């Protein structure tokens, strides 16, 4: 749905841009093509790495690690699993929803989701390329720490 809106927007603006200035449009597209070419090796590496990780670590394993009554240990494990893996939304949410229904703790799941989204060990090389080492490390550490704050607050509000 969202992707459709994105496509419609991109196509419309592309047509408008082409009708206004062909050369300029070409220049812009060429620029983003170059960016894409530069980033492609990393994109592909990330995708394959995720594939390997998810095939080795099954949802059942994750369930055992961060499932019900895993407490603080579970939270730490959830945070580490969430930071290291990069699970796309269409896999992650059905997984967390299943864990939730089978009695998984809100705090563990919140920490898992938040780190999953905001901390990226696999994507770190790409981030460093654009932001530099220091910014990337600090951002990821802070995001990691803040995941625990989020989880604890959610535990307070929702249970």
């Amino acid at each position, binding site marked *: 749905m969202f992707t459709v809106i994105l496509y419609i927007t991109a196509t419309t603006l592309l047509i408008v841009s082409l009708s206004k200035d062909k050369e300029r449009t070409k220049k812009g597209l060429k620029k983003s093509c170059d960016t894409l070419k530069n980033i492609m090796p990393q994109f592909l590496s990330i995708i394959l790495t995720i*594939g390997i990780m998810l095939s080795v670590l099954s949802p059942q394993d994750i369930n055992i690690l961060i499932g019900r009554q895993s407490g603080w240990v579970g939270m730490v494990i959830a945070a580490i699993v969430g930071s290291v893996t990069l699970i796309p*939304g269409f896999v992650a949410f059905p997984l967390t929803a299943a864990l939730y229904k089978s009695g998984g703790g809100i705090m563990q799941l*919140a920490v898992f989701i*938040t780190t999953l989204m905001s901390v990226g060990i696999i994507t770190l090389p790409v981030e460093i390329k654009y932001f530099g080492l*220091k910014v990337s490390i600090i951002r990821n550490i802070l995001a990691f720490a803040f995941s625990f704050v989020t989880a604890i607050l959610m535990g307070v509000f929702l249970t």
Partner: protein
Amino acid sequence: MIQLLKKYKFFLFIVFINCILIAFFPDVGSKSIDISIKNLIEMLIIVPPIFILLGLFDVWAPKELIIKLMGEKSGALGIFLSIALGSFSAGPLYAAFPVAMVLKNKGCKFSNILLFVCAWSTTKIPMLLFEGSSMGWAFMLTRLSINIPGIIIVAYIVEKLTYNKEKNLFRKGEAK
């Protein structure tokens, strides 16, 4: 050719690992290929519109306007716009970095760029809708309302800690 190989050396290394997996653990190996293909398709679907918009933004958006809206003196409006821009996106976090670079070249404030990246990672609308429908709307809304102040705090701390150092490093020639 050699340059191309060099660029893809890490990728080829992972392909090699995957081949080993297929040879010795066919189950795990083929499952990993399945997952990779699924992810690859998702990426290929999302990449064209994002990069078209990125290219158009690059040549059309006037620098003065971006500086005014999201630059050093943009204040609350800049914060709002950065979060909104990051949230109205789709695609994985690593797609956000090239966009962030273009914003930087247009004169966007550093903390706003960080905010944009943080928003892209945690408050993406398609993700929120998915989260709400699978985890319940209370869960989604609670997380969202904790995370919005959270990403603002994180972005400002990162900017304060790295002020003027990495900021200058972060420029066009970086992504080679």
